[in-house]
């Protein structure tokens, strides 16, 4: 099996009834393992909603979602947590680091949740901090780092447990162009090591860095094409 994501006719409706919002409208989508996909769309088009579905953070109102061939709609809350922990590394626009923990401790967290022992934890955390170029910042708290550095810590946290899938929701949304380039470079490097990367953005320039681009408007996929100009890092 080479299919990572198999979505059929997914709808997501917020506030069903009076002021109902149809954030996803009959979306079908297939993503294979090892792809580098950008999902692009304007603000409010339903990108984050789609990402929440893909990342098992939320369940669709209708339609089916198979992740690695498994129907996730029948899983319990804890089983979904488990999938998030083992299969998916999340990167968010707002970094989502825990403020009173150091960079190292933040990166270590998902490993703790997985029950990785202390020594191995340290090894993996240092390795992934090194991978994002922050070996010299391990003892710093988020408030003592720049936005770009914080986002790199978040990436290190996302990849520490070596999940096969990276889900990034506008990871460069709060960063200047220099830091943005840095982040995209890291994502490309992760893709090259065999991970599936799904990158959400509203920036055409950033979407152009991906191998496949999916455009979403008002909760519908209107375009899905392979990017000829894709270059490996």
């Amino acid at each position: 099996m080479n299919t990572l994501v198999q979505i059929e006719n997914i709808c997501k409706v917020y506030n069903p009834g009076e002021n109902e919002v149809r954030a996803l409208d009959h979306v079908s989508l297939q993503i294979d393992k090892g792809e580098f996909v950008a999902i692009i769309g304007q603000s409010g088009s339903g990108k984050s909603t789609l990402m929440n579905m893909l990342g098992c953070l939320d369940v669709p109102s209708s339609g089916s979602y198979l992740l690695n061939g498994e129907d996730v709609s029948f899983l319990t809350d804890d089983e979904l947590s488990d999938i998030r922990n083992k299969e998916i590394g999340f990167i968010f626009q707002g970094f989502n680091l825990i403020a009173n923990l150091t960079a190292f401790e933040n990166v270590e967290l998902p490993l703790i949740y997985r029950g990785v022992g202390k020594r191995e934890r340290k090894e993996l955390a240092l390795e992934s901090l090194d991978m994002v170029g922050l070996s010299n910042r391990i003892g710093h708290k988020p408030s003592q780092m720049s936005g770009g550095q914080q986002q790199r810590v978040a990436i290190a946290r996302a990849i520490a447990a070596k999940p096969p899938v990276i889900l990034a929701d506008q990871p460069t949304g709060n960063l200047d162009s220099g830091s943005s380039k840095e982040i995209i470079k890291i994502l490309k490097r992760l893709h090259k090591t065999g991970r599936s990367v799904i990158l959400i953005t509203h920036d055409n320039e950033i979407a152009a860095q991906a191998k496949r681009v999916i455009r979403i408007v008002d909760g519908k996929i209107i375009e899905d094409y392979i990017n000829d100009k894709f270059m490996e890092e």
Partner: protein
Amino acid sequence: MRISTLLYTLKQGLKNVIRNKVFSLASMATIAACIFLFGLFYCVVANFRYMVKEAEAGVSVTVFFDEGISDEQIEEIGNLIKKRVEVDKVNYISADEAWNEFKEEYLGEYADGFENDNPLKDSASYEIYLKDVSMQSALVTYLESVDGIRQVNKSEFTADALSSLNSLVGYISGGVILILLAVALFLISNTVALGISVRKEEIGIMKLIGATDFIVRSPFIIEGMVIGLIGSAIPLLGIYLGYDKLINYIVEKFNILSTILKFLSVDIVFETLLPVGLIMGIGIGFVGSFWTVRRHLKV
């Protein structure tokens, strides 16, 4: 569940207690007050029971027989008495035994003149020991109706009064402890709720990166239990150290009553008080935090 995850949870729980200092201390103090009062009342009640029991052991009812009664009749009465449920033990004291005891106790060396003439020749008796002093009046009523019994002497020991005082102390302490328990639960619940609200964002992030409900919730429950443990250990230690001093003080102050005032040793009291007190404290902590986590952490 792996050991490293458990250790992490434990550490987070302890951190919560420290991070939440003021509220944690307030909760601990309330639990401490609760357990302290409980311990104190327990000591009083346990010692009361003990004293009553000791006193009861020496209490007996004595029956004397009609003049000229035959030995067979006496034996028959003895059998009747032994069949009663109230009765623990019956001793027959013959007239000679009674006389000898009397001589020894009151006449001493002057007893010789009475040598062959027992003035107590109708004083044979049964000494009846009861299982429980509260049954005394029922038995006396019965004995007075038995043929061949001339007189029933009952003990004037006021076990009834003692028993009711004992249960009064029990009710009052129960009431006070219940109120303190409610206050302690309320405070622990607030402490944990505060911790949860301060860390709402952090908890959200934890869930995002794959923390299970167990990992999210258990630090708060451990926090409650640690507060309960410390809150109960302190007053128990205090009572343990202060117990002998207090007893000595009471004995000195009321040494007229030294025959009645018999106290349990601190070790015997703590055989029950220690586990019960600790379980109460930890239990309050567990219930308070569990309940709050269930309400505030619908993740």
